[in-house]
């Protein structure tokens, strides 16, 4: 099962290594991880999606709390968060299929951000499922390159009030 945790950490060197090391050592699987500065320069924010096979989420959170540089942790149930991921997809779009690819992009509200003779590069944001769906549809045309950011998440209005 996948869980999203939101972690505020001190913006100090080595913090990412401590967190990654902890996950590795304790046998917790990181599905995705994204790090970014916050409005306060002293802190960074991480969205970590953990894949929990047999380790309880409670252990992950408690062990994370033991790191001195970790300030605050929220673990959210899927229904408590709004989450998004962004993907850049470079797909084969030679003249015979270009119209079809554009149509798929439109359905998913993907933006075309680069065009060349044989390729289109799409930018798509959405839930993980949505991203996976567009990738599945584009696959038969030939995906040349694909980069996903991993999920970022924020609590829904109610969850924090």
């Amino acid at each position, binding site marked *: 099962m996948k869980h999203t945790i939101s972690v505020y950490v*001190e913006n100090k*060197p*080595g913090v990412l*290594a401590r967190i990654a*090391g902890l996950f590795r*050592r304790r046998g917790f699987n990181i599905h995705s991880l994204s790090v970014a500065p916050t409005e306060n320069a002293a802190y960074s924010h991480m969205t970590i999606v953990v894949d929990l096979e047999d380790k309880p989420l*409670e252990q992950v959170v*408690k062990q994370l709390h033991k790191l*001195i540089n970790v300030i*605050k942790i929220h673990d959210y149930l899927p229904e408590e968060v709004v989450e998004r991921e962004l993907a850049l997809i470079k797909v084969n779009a030679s003249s015979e299929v270009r119209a079809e690819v554009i149509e798929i992009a439109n359905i998913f509200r993907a933006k075309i951000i680069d065009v060349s003779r044989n390729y289109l590069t799409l930018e798509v944001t959405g839930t993980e499922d949505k991203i996976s769906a567009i990738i599945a549809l584009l696959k038969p045309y030939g995906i040349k390159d694909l980069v996903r950011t991993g999920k970022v998440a924020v609590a829904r209005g109610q969850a924090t009030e």
Partner: protein
Amino acid sequence: MKISGAQAIVKSLEYLGVKDVFGIPGGATLPLYDALADSKIINHYLMRHEQCAAHAADGYARASGKIGVCMATSGPGATNLVTGIANAYMDSIPIVAFTGQVPTHVIGTDAFQEADITGITLPIVKHSYLVTDATDIPQIVAEAFYIASTGRPGPVLIDIPRDIQQQFIDYHLIEKVTLPGYKPTIKGHARQIKESAKLILESKRPVLLIGGGIITSGASEEVFKLATTHRLPVTWTLMGKGGFPENHELSMGMIGMHGTKTSNMAVQNCDLLIGAGVRFDDRATGNVARFAPHASIIHIDIDPAEVSKIVKASVPIVGDARTILKALNEYLSEFEPKANHEGWLSQIKKWKKNYALRVPRDKILKPQLLVHTLKKMTAGMEIIVTTGVGQNQMWAAQYFNMEKPRHFISSGGLGTMGFGLPSAIGAQVAKPDALVIDIDGDGSFQMVLQDLATIACYNLPVKIVIINNRYLGMVRQWQQLFYKGKYFAVDLEKGTPDFEELGRAYGIRAKSVKEYSQLEKSISEMLSHEGPFILDVHVEKEENVFPMVPAGAALDEIIGGEAK
């Protein structure tokens, strides 16, 4: 007035009350040692291996309750500390390790004697620092001491590049440390304490299990009060030894793989297990799935991550063990102690009688008899025992009864051979008036014997009692019991030096004993000798440690332990 980073380190240490440090210098710590040389307060003990410096700091901390400090140069000096740091980490011992690092401008270039020690030690420290600006030194040292010694204690490493040690700064005192992400819980939750009290009053078959947390938090008196008021039989982990007086009628002995049959049976049959300052290590619990199957479990520990990590607690209480037990005792004082478990106590009494640890009486040099005799002949003295790892350690734990905390010093979580001698050095430095005895194994001792030089150099009156079985005995025991007696790579007969000669080489009085008839006389000679002493006792080679719970078995599937 401006001072160097190195001087700032020394000044910070002095301000924090450090009197003794253990280490070995090198290129990357030359400035630090130059500043240290000028300190009128701090004694530096020059060790012969950095691993021993870390273990000495560890033993110092365990014996005194203060923070142990060790130092090493960059690269190999720092990597030599690793075992010692891991050992302190596993047993939650507060040490602060200082390492020199190559100058900042060459970090990352594979410079001479560069090792990424903050990276290497990441999984075995409570916290660590790589100092990049000497201005931060007072703050970092203060934080390191605060982090190492509060909450669940542990090792903290400070890596300081040589140029940072030479950078001049305005020194400022740090009086108070506050860290946004670090606030250990001290007080237990009141509702949980009430809930525990209820369980204690209702229990018909209670057991109190104490661990290293009791020693760390200084909770022995509260443990004593709780146990005696409510007539709770007490068992302990290796780390909890000394937390409750062993000669007390409520004492059942150690739990676990080489615990007493009484303790193990009691835990398997109890209806309430109060685990205080314990983490339910596998050596203590045996097969976890079948551990204490009939019990409600009250788990008291300062580390929230330990609660329900291994064993699901019915009543978890996070906080400092002493504070919690004090509150529990206070709350319980409002009730008449029910102690409605006379049947249980008499059952335990019966087990204790039937399963008492046996002292071989056949007057041959058995290791158990050695430890028993040593205990008997030092009764009433202020003794600190340290141990090696293996059979020697288990016999020391089984047969050297302890009445007080901080007097039994042993490598629990990591099981580090070689811990006995250097931890004895640290303990002796911390407690100059105590009689420090390292009960060691011939194999363990040989991993660290170069530090006999340290003992000789500072004339530390450490007594080293080697349980000499000419074997890596514990491994041999497992090969005998579980690998069809195929002994491989465990024989120390060849190559082991004559320890009497070895002592002589270091200028340390030494004596080898090969007959039971010489034992008491030799022990007296050792005890009356003022300086250090090596007592090398050639014991029965193939003696095994019993009772024993085989790996993977439940605690009541214990082999041996019946009195004959």
